């Protein structure tokens, strides 16, 4: 059984092919380049390299966000169209869960996060139970400073993972002190193989209904809802 996993939800572009649970190929780049131009050629290259035709694929796995709105949509559009046209199941995996897998060997709380500008982050908390990651906090778009303060009150060690670590490491140290565990660089980059492993514990979704996990309304919609509310309150 061949699984194709795709991640363009953040700066990392990741494509992986697994045969059952064995990784047969993976491409990961962490550079500022256009996902729309590079995703299909990367899939094409990897499929040819491992000698698999599209019709031999059995499952598509995709990072559904949070992250870059455009990036998430490029991955999801590609994945959904592949799944629909090949008539195979699709599974969307949270980009935060995918990243958290980088520390799934530990027994500590794992906090993956992506920068969401203006002091905000997309984040969540995971722990490992029986070799599987389990989310223990709902994913959210929140002020990182507030989030860290609440986290510090747990008085437990927390592993932080993020491609945007440089921007936030000061704040983490400030709020969490010795409780913050920040691993080496390589572990902050999400791997598409992790998405495929995460997906192996999940049920397939209805292809048409799979939608991005933005964690945030479009600005115009948020403003519109606010005006409606203000109107109601007179």
């Amino acid at each position, binding site marked *: 059984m061949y699984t194709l996993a795709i991640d363009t939800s953040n700066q990392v572009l990741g494509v992986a092919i697994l045969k059952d649970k064995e990784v047969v190929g993976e491409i990961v780049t962490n550079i500022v380049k*256009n996902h*729309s*131009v*590079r*995703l*299909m*050629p990367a*899939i*094409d290259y990897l499929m040819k390299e491992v000698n698999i035709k*599209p019709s031999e694929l059995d499952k598509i796995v995709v990072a559904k966000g949070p992250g870059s*709105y*455009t990036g998430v*949509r*490029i991955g*999801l*559009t*590609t*994945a*959904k*169209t*592949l799944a*629909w*046209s*090949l008539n195979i199941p699709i599974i969307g995996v949270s980009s935060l869960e995918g990243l958290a897998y980088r520390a799934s060997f530990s027994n500590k709380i794992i906090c993956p996060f992506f920068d969401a500008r203006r002091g905000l982050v997309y984040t969540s908390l995971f722990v490992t139970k029986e070799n599987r990651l389990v989310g223990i906090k709902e994913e959210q778009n929140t002020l990182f400073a507030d989030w860290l303060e609440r986290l510090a009150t747990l008085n437990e060690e927390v592993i932080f993972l993020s491609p945007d670590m440089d921007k936030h490491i000061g704040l983490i140290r400030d709020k969490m002190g010795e409780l913050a565990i920040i691993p080496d660089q390589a572990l902050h980059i999400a791997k598409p193989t992790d998405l495929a492993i995460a997906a192996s514990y999940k049920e397939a979704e209805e*292809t*048409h209904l799979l*939608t*991005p996990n*933005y964690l945030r309304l*479009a*600005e*115009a*919609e948020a403003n*519109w809802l606010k005006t409606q509310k203000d109107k109601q309150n007179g």
Partner: protein
Amino acid sequence: MKETYILGIETSCDETAVAIIKNGKEIVSNVVASQIESHKRFGGVVPEIASRHHVEQITLVLEEAFTNSKLIWDDIDAIAVTEGPGLVGALLIGVNAAKALAFAKDKPLVGVHHIAGHIYANRLEKEFEFPLLALIVSGGHTELVLMREHGKYEVIGETRDDAAGEAYDKVARMLELPYPGGPHIDRLAHEGEITIDFPRAWLEEDSYDFSFSGLKSAVINKIHNAKQKGETLKPEDIAASFQASVIDVLATKTLKAARQYQVKQVIVAGGVAANKGLRAELESKFADTDIPLLIPPLSLCTDNAAMIAAAGTINFEQGKRSDLTLNANPSLILR
């Protein structure tokens, strides 16, 4: 002879559309999911919201168009898609869906210019005769395009500022008409009288370019001044006078170009081609010539994928191909 079936995808603005066309001329299936209801509350198309809707709709629309066609994948010769111009985030959905489909089904991929699509909407009604002149008027475009053969476009005139449709939308907003304003102005214009002599931007003697920003400002000033003086202007009369200025320039320049290039057909395309005032003016101007005037039915004037598949058929037949690096190009040039 084997039939040619092209599947087209269009997501350049606020319609998610997929169609299948036979031999470039015959609609096999044509599905358009419009987002207009969603954008109404914002008074215009919000790019981020448009992209969100496209990604939710794309496989549903693909499935409906493909199922309706009763074809099998072996029948399909190529996948055509709008690569530009348009809203970049919206275009990206169609482009990436098209690439995934071309890859999964091992089909050639053909990028199509949105305006070429609007022109080729007419070929679904009547075969082209060259040279032909196309007037494209929509929310984003006002262009005169000369074609001497299939697949080759010479832009002989274009707007230097606002598109005609843009001017319509802005004037509609001044008159507090709901979005999209174009059809409302057209309706009001028929109930009013041309009482105000708004300016017409003819530009240089030999130019086929257009300009509508001066007219737009003149309308705004007129409304403003009347308000300050406490006068009441009938919105119907403003609409009629504004529309008269727009269509006078459009029709006059189109006729002049048609004569100069001795064209065998004049084609009207784009969303504003649905405008009754424009249709009537062009029809009367061309009535005493022997140049046939082609205006597609309403459903083919607005954005759809049948037109993209129709234009894509020509690109396919001419051996034009895109590869998997195809990207959305919001400012793609027609040539």
